[in-house]
């Protein structure tokens, strides 16, 4: 063994690689972190606020608030708490995150910087219009990009997320039928492969939902669709490319059939990232479509939001938008229309004007790529997915024949008889350092594994993923069930008991002793 002259060993002394039990329960960089409520020290505070000026109370007759029960921590403790928690998360910044249908692509930090400019971040939504011309210009410009990329006539930026955009679109459809005095349309048709939000949205807008089956090749069954279309159908909600990762080849025929029946064609635009710059949804006969800015235009998912779900409308539905919207006067000044009044606007989706912080990020992303780069985004996203399909199809079972679009779908036939499940494969992938693919969705195939690599993965990253997944598929076929059922082993927590969580829900921390009782003693 080599020594330096202070006696500090510099070589590797022991090659025992077994993971030790530690006194603290910590494992090197993985540090156990109690709840913030378990770190309370009464009187400690992480902010310094000035003395409260002595003025009389104008609160009226309400009784003053007692102790709330919030923990007291100093700033360094708070920083450490959240830093340690963050280290228990997988993220697109750390590695491949191939969640099908979720589009986990790189989130450029320029977008974060732009959204934090005081001229955007520190502007109150109800400031006089003369003081927010740049904010309104940005909204108009984002709207122009979205309308141009989709070929549509009108845009609303109001919806707060994709599902909220769906709701907006279905409300527009309903409003259009109502405006024609057509009250007999009570149904929305939704393919079986649709996101769960589609039927939930239709129901939330007062419609009955009818499912359309899929064909053998993973597309909408055109004959079944035509059979269901009639004077009682308000619209069709279709995801394209669909949730099997396939382009609906018959889409123009579908649109014609829907229109011939007097219904409208809603497209769930969750997968627009596959075709942006390659085809304009308006040219496919779509009447209305939402766009997830957090998918196609890379605003960060943030552990589950905030999203943003602008909706684009063809001429046929353009009058039926919610408030508010931006208009430009002849003199070039921008104005917000905030009240529905007696016009065709059907109402309001949320407070204020939409997810401005997300608008800035999305526009920064669009401008960075430009028209040429966005087309390349679609090309590379589709290329990456087809590459994975090609490299995995001999060891896993693709559900449908390719080419696929931005994601490739496998089912669990390759696991048949092995005792290993889709869930097990996902959990074993975690130990290999990857976030799993989407599992058990779409519902149209058994044990679905839906893989969406996105365009921001390098070939080396894809190759490593392929190597890991091929090895796991082989291992499953070799009958090593115990290995899979014990996975993951290298994570901050191993498999969690979801059944127990749902049976007796514990949804908040409660103190061992109620604070009032402590005070009374």
């Amino acid at each position, binding site marked *: 063994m080599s020594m330096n002259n202070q006696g500090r060993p510099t070589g590797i002394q022991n090659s025992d690689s077994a993971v030790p039990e530690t006194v603290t329960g910590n494992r090197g960089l993985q540090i156990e972190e109690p709840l913030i409520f378990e770190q309370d020290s009464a009187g400690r505070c992480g902010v310094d606020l000035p003395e409260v000026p002595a003025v009389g109370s104008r609160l009226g007759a309400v*009784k003053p608030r007692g102790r709330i029960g919030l923990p007291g921590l100093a700033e360094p403790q708070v920083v450490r708490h959240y830093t340690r928690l963050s280290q228990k998360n997988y993220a697109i910044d750390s590695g491949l995150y191939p969640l099908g249908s979720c589009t986990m692509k790189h989130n450029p930090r320029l977008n*974060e910087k732009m959204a934090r400019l005081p001229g955007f971040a520190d502007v109150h939504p109800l400031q006089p219009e003369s003081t927010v011309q740049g904010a309104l210009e940005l909204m108009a410009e984002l709207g122009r990009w979205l309308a141009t990329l989709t070929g549509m006539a009108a845009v609303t930026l109001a919806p707060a997320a994709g599902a909220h955009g769906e709701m907006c679109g279905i409300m527009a459809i309903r409003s259009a039928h109502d405006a024609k005095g057509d009250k007999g349309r009570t149904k929305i048709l939704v393919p079986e492969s649709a996101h769960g939000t589609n039927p939930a949205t239709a129901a939330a*807008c007062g419609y009955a939902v009818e499912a359309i089956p899929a064909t053998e090749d993973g597309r909408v069954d055109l004959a079944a669709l035509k059979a269901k279309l009639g004077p009682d159908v308000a619209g069709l909600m279709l995801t394209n490319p669909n949730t099997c990762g396939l382009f609906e080849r018959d889409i123009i025929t579908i649109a014609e059939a829907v229109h011939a029946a007097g219904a409208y064609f809603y497209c769930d635009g969750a997968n627009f990232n596959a075709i942006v710059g390659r085809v304009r949804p308006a*040219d496919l006969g779509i009447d209305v479509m939402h766009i997830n800015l957090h998918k196609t235009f890379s605003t960060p998912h943030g552990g589950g939001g905030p999203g943003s779900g602008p909706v684009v409308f063809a001429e046929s539905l353009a009058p039926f938008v919610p408030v508010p919207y931006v208009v430009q006067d002849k003199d070039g000044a921008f104005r917000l229309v905030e009240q529905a009044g007696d016009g065709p606007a059907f109402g309001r989706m949320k407070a204020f004007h939409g997810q401005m912080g997300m608008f800035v990020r999305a526009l920064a992303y669009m401008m960075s790529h430009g028209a040429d780069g966005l087309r390349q985004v679609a090309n590379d996203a589709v290329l990456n997915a*087809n590459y994975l399909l090609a490299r995995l199809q001999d060891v896993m079972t693709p559900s449908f024949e390719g080419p696929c679009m931005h994601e490739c779908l496998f089912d669990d036939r390759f696991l048949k008889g092995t005792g290993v499940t889709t869930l097990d494969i996902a959990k074993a992938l975690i130990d290999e350092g990857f976030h799993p693919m989407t599992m058990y969705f779409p519902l149209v195939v058994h044990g679905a594994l839906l893989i969406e690599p996105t365009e921001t993965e390098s070939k080396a990253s894809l190759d490593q993923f392929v190597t890991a997944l091929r090895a796991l598929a082989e291992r499953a076929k070799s009958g090593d069930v115990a290995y899979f059922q014990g996975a993951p082993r290298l994570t901050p927590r191993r498999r969690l008991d979801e059944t127990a969580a749902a049976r007796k829900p514990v949804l908040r921390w409660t103190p061992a002793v109620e604070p009032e009782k402590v005070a009374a003693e």
Partner: protein
Amino acid sequence: MRYLPLTEADRRSMLEAIGVPSVDELFRDVPEAARLSGPIEGLSNHMGELEVDRALSAMAGKNLPAGSVPSFLGAGAYRHHIPATVDHLVQRGEFLTAYTPYQPEVSQGTLQVLFEFQTQVSLLTGMDVANASMYDGATACAEAVMMANRVTRRKKAVLSGGLHPHYRDTTTTDARFIGFETVVMPPAPTGGEDLLAEVDGDTSCVVVQNPDVFGHVRDYTELGRACQAKGALLIVVVTEAVSLGLLTPPGEMGADIVAAEGQSLGNALNFGGPYVGLFAVKEKLVRQMPGRLCGQTVDADGRRGFVLTLSTREQHIRREKATSNICTNSGLCALAFSIHLSLLGEEGFARLAELNHAKAVQLADKLAAVRGVEIVNGSFFNEFTVKLPKPAADVVEALAQRGILGGVPASRLFGGGLDDLLIVAATETNTESDMDAFATALAEVL
């Protein structure tokens, strides 16, 4: 293109592995008539960081940041000081660039944050349980009404005239499409309203706001009792979360559901979004709640851990029978809320609330001294309404030209009427000299 790692050589070898001559071949399912042959016209081509920064900074430069001038706007969005720590932690990539925690083994960070957030919201509102957040306060309010209808199997909601008009309109829009009735009381800027008179056997809920949109502090304890006697739920809306540091929490007033806006904690004004809706209920209503819930459980080694739970309420399982179509929460905004509240703690939060109230009292006294200005409120927290001798919209414009953001005209919120009313807020960010400047400018423009 800096965000795209594939090289031309990569692309060629990948196409070869796939067995197609070109990427165009992969798009062969797209109907030929609709295929675009090149970049879409009318949009700029790709740009470097510097160019994008320049273009967007120019747009940002055309706005007047609220923090650059004396600013007194509220009405559902409040300018508070956000500790530097909040934005630093929120931008950690492991929080910022993670997805919904569907794989709990690699999402314990987000999940523990949500569990702590749910606890914080429950404590603040005085309720039993809170969810992992909604889009914003207005959509939380609409969801609360839909939920009340499901729970009570009744179809009519009574909305107070003191409810923020954006919340009101969001709720009535949702209600109209699903076929529920809403009774909307006229705004009552100076006085009470008889909500109970509207409650009948088909009324699912009464929706009130505290402080209301004009800033009045209300005690809804009696109303809560009366609603209960009539089988209707009491929904209490809060648009200024900081008020919960000083006022009786809705839970203590008998609220069944609380729908609130959490922007005030941790979240910048952002021209109106993204914000974070808070949603809390009594224990017995948990299974009818919309939105995501995080719950505690154990892992295979018996250690405490967290998962998303009760998902059988949600759209991805229940589809058209779900409690809501909502699919996201407002994760990152909830995180910011949580971090800010953790920094404040019990003492800081109470002090912040007291400070806000004291600032508003000071401002009210200064404005009341201006000739022609009348304070409408008998009580308020950090926001109140003043009656002016001129249309408030004109006054606000004139103030803006003097570099003062002087409040929100009630007419802008209500779409006409109430022309002489101006809603004014003060927070810890307003200095005494800001207030003097406001009072002086107001005297000049009146």
